């Protein structure tokens, strides 16, 4: 790592290591305090400071003019133009989950698990080597394997951590084959790239290895699962690989991921037609829409890559909003989870939750005026430019997803309120605050998308240039 610390300039403050150490300290403190009422406040406070540190790191990186800056204390992590936005976003998403978690969920184990998941994901985002990336990748599933989110008396699915373990092995195998110390994929041969793509497919839930996510959503703790999934570490791995000069033969393999993502988007949207369980519907919606990210990233088009990078932010924010509202309903109305028949009519008592759900959902499927629209517009444009079939198929998948989303919305919020449902409260202040932030991000970001676009375009340009360079050399 010595050569890295010499080659890459440093942050003026150890903000990344501060984020990680603060989070780990908070985890220890919460474990010591146990089930005390102050633990959530402590976790929220810690998360607020982490967001501050990460924003500071991103600001310092932008001000320095360098593409990447190493943490001065711990050279295993860095902030760069690719990860700075998603680091801050992930911090905010974690805060959202901490605030929105119903009281019955927010146990000491849950808070520790969420904070650990955040720390592991930050480490993955900032990793300066493939080995570090792989370590963070596997560690992020540790809270699930250790049962931090386990509810007594409920059989949780081990699908999530099994998938992560297999993908982690594949990733480590690829790292071993490449034999590089840094985040350099230029030595990747066909087998190493195949292992990398397997890891990406497993982590992102690409067909035919997508079913673990539906099971994790259905028989797992919903909020941590969506937080885990919204790390989109698989997409980041692909971005890291594309950013280095891949050999032409290896680059060709990216097409497999593109087609796999397309197939996943279509397949899951077809699966949803006969699906009624809300949790599975949410899982498949997330998988289907998130697979657009991979389709855009591997499209090889400048527009497609930019669209994918923005869609990443949209999927993360919108799906967290959707799932959080759904979990709030589950807690308020015991029958929601098991309800596969009829309409629950919860909108009559919880109109604000209904609005949050609808706007987040519509942003996810690209309603004009939301950030999802700009993202999908660019993504489809890029996809149509490179592969017209993919562009048209993605349109079909979005249309189907929108229909399923509206079906789910109507099932939860429309219809006559069941007589057995007592008065349920609308969004509480604790819930309203993060959900409003989420909504504002999606709507204001959609009305004025230029700043976000400009930032993401710079990253997309770098990825596209690397891909073009190698394509030109192979010619």
């Amino acid at each position, binding site marked *: 790592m010595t050569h890295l610390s010499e080659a890459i300039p440093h942050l003026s403050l150890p903000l990344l290591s501060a984020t990680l150490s603060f989070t780990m300290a908070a985890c220890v403190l919460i474990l010591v305090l146990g089930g005390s009422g102050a633990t959530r406040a402590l976790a929220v406070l810690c998360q607020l400071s982490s967001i501050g540190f990460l924003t500071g790191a991103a600001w310092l990186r932008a001000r320095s003019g360098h593409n990447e800056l190493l943490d001065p204390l711990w050279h295993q992590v860095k902030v760069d133009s690719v990860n700075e936005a998603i680091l801050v976003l992930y911090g905010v998403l974690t805060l959202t989950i901490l605030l929105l978690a119903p009281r019955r969920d927010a146990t000491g184990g849950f808070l520790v698990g969420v904070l650990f998941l955040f720390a592991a994901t930050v480490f993955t985002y900032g990793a300066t080597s493939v080995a570090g990336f792989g370590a963070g990748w596997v560690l992020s599933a540790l809270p699930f394997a250790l049962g931090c989110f386990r509810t007594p008396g409920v059989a949780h*699915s*081990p*699908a999530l951590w*099994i*998938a992560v373990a297999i993908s982690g092995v594949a990733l480590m195998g690829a790292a071993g084959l490449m034999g590089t110390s840094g985040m350099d994929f230029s030595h990747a041969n066909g087998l190493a790239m195949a292992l990398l793509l397997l890891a990406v497919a497993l982590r992102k839930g690409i067909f*035919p*290895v997508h*079913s*673990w996510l*539906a*099971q994790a959503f259905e028989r797992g703790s919903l909020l941590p699962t969506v937080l885990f999934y919204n790390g989109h570490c698989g997409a980041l791995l692909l971005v890291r690989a594309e950013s280095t000069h891949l050999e032409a033969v290896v680059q060709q393999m990216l097409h497999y991921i593109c087609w796999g993502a397309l197939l996943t988007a279509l*397949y899951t949207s*077809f*699966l*949803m*037609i*006969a*699906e*009624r*369980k809300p949790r*599975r519907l949410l899982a498949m919606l997330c998988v289907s829409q998130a697979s657009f990210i991979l389709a855009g990233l591997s499209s090889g088009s400048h*527009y497609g890559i*930019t669209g994918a990078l923005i869609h990443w932010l949209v999927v993360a924010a919108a799906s967290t909003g959707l799932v959080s509202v759904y979990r709030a309903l589950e807690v308020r109305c015991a029958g929601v989870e098991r309800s596969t028949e009829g309409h629950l*009519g919860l909108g*009559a008592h919880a*109109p*604000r939750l209904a*609005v949050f759900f609808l706007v987040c959902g*519509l942003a996810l499927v690209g*309603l*004009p*005026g939301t950030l999802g629209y*700009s993202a999908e*517009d*660019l993504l*489809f*444009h890029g996809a*149509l*430019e490179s592969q017209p079939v993919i*562009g*048209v198929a993605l*349109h079909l998948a979005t*249309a*189907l997803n929108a*229909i399923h989303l*509206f*079906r789910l919305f*109507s*099932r939860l*919020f*429309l*219809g*006559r*309120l069941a007589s057995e449902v007592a008065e349920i409260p609308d969004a509480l202040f604790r819930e*309203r605050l993060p959900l*409003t932030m989420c909504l504002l991000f999606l709507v204001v970001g959609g009305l004025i*998308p*230029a700043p976000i*676009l400009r930032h993401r*375009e710079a990253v997309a340009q770098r990825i596209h240039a690397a891909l073009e360079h190698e394509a030109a050399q192979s010619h």
Partner: protein
Amino acid sequence: MDIGLNGQILVGLVIAPALLFLALAVFWLLGWKGQEKIVCALTGFLFLGLTLGTGVLAFRMVRHRLPSVSVDLGNWFAIGDYGFPLRLTVDRLSLPMVGLTVVLVGLVGKFSTLYLHRDPGHLRFFLLIQLYAFGSLLLFTAGSIDLLMAGWELVGITSVLLIGFFSYRREPVLNAIRVFATYRLADICILVAVFLAHHWYGSGLWSALITGEWPMQKSAVGGPELNILGVLLVLAACGKSSQGPFFGWLPRAMEGPTPSSAIFYGAISVHAGAYLVLRIEPLLESAPVARYVLMAIGISTAVVATLIHRTCTDVKTGLSYASMTQLAVIFTEVSLGWTMVAMLHIAGHVAVRTAQFLRAPSMLHEYRQLHAASGGQIGETGEHYEALVPHKLQLWLYGLGLDRGHYDAIVDRLVIAPMVCLSAVLNRIEPTWMGGSSPAKASKSEAEEVAGDLVTENSHDAPV
């Protein structure tokens, strides 16, 4: 950016409803209850202002002999060569539509003040009407196909939310899902058309595709690919105007409150499709395939819809098929190149149909009054032409009309059921590895039950 007084009026016209919508929505999210008087007064002032603004703009255009007013607001977003142009244009085609929109939405808002008095969804209705007005104005004043699509989608989503307005009943909710599904599938055509326009012609601006001033416009582009673009846009228009392959959703949309039925399905929303085909008429001149498709769709829909209209037993469903018939005639007129006739037809149809929809709740009452006033001497009508048709054919046509042209049966059996079946099969063979499984194990019959919200019953006659 100096956009001049005309430009300022135009921008103000378009964004004013959006600003009111956003302000009211934010206040409501913060806990405001949405008092009826305040909401109605603000909406009233808004549409009064919009009507005056449209009047002033029209006056200035006539006075200064301006065939059109355009405002360039730059790009909404842009990457490399690709941008989403924000250009608003009002010309002889869009100005009447803008005028009709602001006047009729204002009138319907006034009507709804009493109609929805003390309704729990009062605020929701007015918010949706404001969003709808914004979407419509954006659609009609869009200077590019991209911006038109944004307005198009907003009109669609507000329309669906208003169909499901009385959500405590099952039918409105099911019909809202069905209409939404139809809209989304039709919208694929316009989405693909937008991207193809950029791909083939490098721009989505109307001025890049069409030259001259309406109604003397010419196509600025050509080539065989124009047929594909034309057909896609015609199909998208069919989705919005309930024509051809997307015929059949309009009666389902009658589940919404009568004022929204009037403004959406009697007046503005269904005519958005007709507006689109009028807008692209110069392109159709160079795209014969698209023109013939439009003509075929117009004629076939007119025949079937008028047959069905004659068998309808409730007012709103009858009016919806009557609307569909007139829209089909408008489509045919456009396909024949009679643009001015089509424009006048739209204006007249919008006014008459809105009045009919708004009077629909009191139609039975009025008929009884008329019946009593005439001493019970109201004669039967409409049997002259029927008598010219052979009896067997009469019966067959009656059956066809009564079953709504078998449209729902065809769609349910040939489109939805196979998709549901395929989905059920996929669910059954869904991988069950990694930690056991619990995918939905639906048999075919169960799957049909499961997708009940897509395969709705035929009982969609709207209550008056």
